[in-house]
């Protein structure tokens, strides 16, 4: 029986091997046509135009732009909510409010994309006249809202794990809840909170449907959130729905884009895993 169970566990390893194999072998073909140097430094991305450019920078900038906007919303709000729920809120309030926050995380992302495109963008256009119909701003904002519960619940777990004696000590010195939270609890839980932020960042980098629907599909090297951009993920989706012949160099670009995305999220996940391991040892 142990053998059978082990084979099932090994499927997870095979999945990783499969991902790495598929991404690297397919993009190897791609990099035989396009030099890695051009891929990393060319400032234009136009694989299907007559004048072809294969520079990943515009896609990377689009990805980072939407990610940074979403983090600007989700990090302060998520951490504040975590502190509020763990240090301020009555137990009963927490009991009812947490499942409601979890709903935010359970809504399918294509639905958030619809929300960004049909509600948030028209609303923002009243105040920001130059806002394109597809823009990085509303996609980023909505993605931020989606990520709030992820940061708040992981951070709350970290705050909760701080030994009670630290709290009692601070209160005994006459601190208010605010002083206790920010000067004692938050520093003590900092590694757990950083882990939650890194994981959320990786999630935002890999998020697909919100940016595909609401941020557009125009590879655009810009830092202006009002403009239409394309993220790595949105490019892969649009290329998959298009009618580009398979096994052409244009088609191989989705694997080159995929490998960039994978390496990026792999680094982020590994950092968070290392921090988490160290953090656990400290408390055990």
């Amino acid at each position, binding site marked *: 029986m142990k053998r059978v169970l082990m084979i099932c566990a090994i499927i*997870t390893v095979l999945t990783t091997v499969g991902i790495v194999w598929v991404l690297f072998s397919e993009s190897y073909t791609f990099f035989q046509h396009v030099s890695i140097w051009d891929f990393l430094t060319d400032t234009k991305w136009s694989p299907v135009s007559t004048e072809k450019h294969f520079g990943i920078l515009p896609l990377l900038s689009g990805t980072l732009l939407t990610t940074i906007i979403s983090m600007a919303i989700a990090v302060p709000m998520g951490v504040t909510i975590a502190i509020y729920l763990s240090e301020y809120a009555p137990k009963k309030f927490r009991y009812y409010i947490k499942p409601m*926050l979890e709903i935010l995380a*359970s809504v399918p992302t294509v639905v958030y994309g619809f929300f960004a495109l049909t509600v948030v963008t028209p609303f923002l256009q009243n105040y920001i006249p130059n806002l394109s119909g597809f823009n990085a701003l509303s996609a980023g904002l909505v993605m931020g809202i989606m990520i709030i519960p992820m940061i708040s619940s992981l951070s709350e777990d970290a705050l909760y794990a701080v030994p009670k004696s630290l709290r009692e000590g601070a209160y005994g010195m006459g601190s208010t*809840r605010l002083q206790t939270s920010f000067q004692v609890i938050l520093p003590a839980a900092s590694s757990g909170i950083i882990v939650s932020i890194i994981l959320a960042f990786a999630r935002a980098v890999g998020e697909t449907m919100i940016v595909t629907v609401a941020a557009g599909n125009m590879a655009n090297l810009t830092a202006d959130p009002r403009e239409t951009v394309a993220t790595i993920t949105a490019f892969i989706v649009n290329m998959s729905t298009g009618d580009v012949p398979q096994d052409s160099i244009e088609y191989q670009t989705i694997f080159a884009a995929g490998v960039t995305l994978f390496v990026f999220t792999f680094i982020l*996940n590994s950092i968070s895993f290392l921090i988490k391991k160290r953090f656990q040892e400290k408390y055990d």
Partner: protein
Amino acid sequence: MTNADKNRIKDKMFGYFGMACTFFGIFMLLIFLSDIVISGWQKVDFDFLSSFPSSRPKKAGIYPALIGTLWILGLTAIIALPIGIAAGVYFEEYAKKSKMANFLEINLANLAGVPSIIYGLLGLQIFVRTLNFGTSILSGACTLALLILPIIIVSTREALKAVPDSIRQASYGMGANTWQTIWHQVLPASSGGIITGIILAISRAIGETAPLIVIGAATYITYIPEDAMSNFTVLPMQIYDWVGMPETPDGDYKTISSAGIIVLLMITFLLNGIAVFLRNRWQKKVKW
């Protein structure tokens, strides 16, 4: 005003700010849900559920997408559940504290963080092309099964972890071997937690769009899938297709995409509700 007074005011202010932040997310959710219900509710009826998509939004329906979603849901569950639970049992009960276990652990943590669209690229290359399943329900279900496997494994492990060691020791004391202990004692005792995790994983699979787009699932289908090798579409893909459509004079796409979203959200919320209910019941009932 003394310093202490100032600090007390700051403390109060932060309390209100925290409450405002907490309600902000829920408030946005409410705005959003009401917007969708207002624009789509009148469209959700039997005709909408039982019609095929059409180039005229007024006549369009989600029948093939709904059936496709059920197919994908069933097949994904059949593939992912046994493997996920078995792997979870192996991780938690057999592979503790070895080098191999450590490696499996790191691998699992990384898999859980791989963006869903990458699973799409994997599925495209392995299932659609190499194994030659084509753009079929089987390919889609295999891809989504790999995607939710880490979720099922992690939640199974959490549930197994909650079973106290005394149960295991008692079973060993009666002369049971490891597998008998797991099968007769540990699994029944943790079933509530495992089922909760499974339902959450499946509700995640239902909402996934990106990997299915990448493996090439269709957005416009005018027939009902007959077997696991049929081409298919699912609800989120149908919605994605409609969201991208321009407005037409003959009825508009916002109405039908909203109506599709209502149906999709009803399914996800129902599954999540069941999961939360089971979790609460399980936590209440089992007090070790």
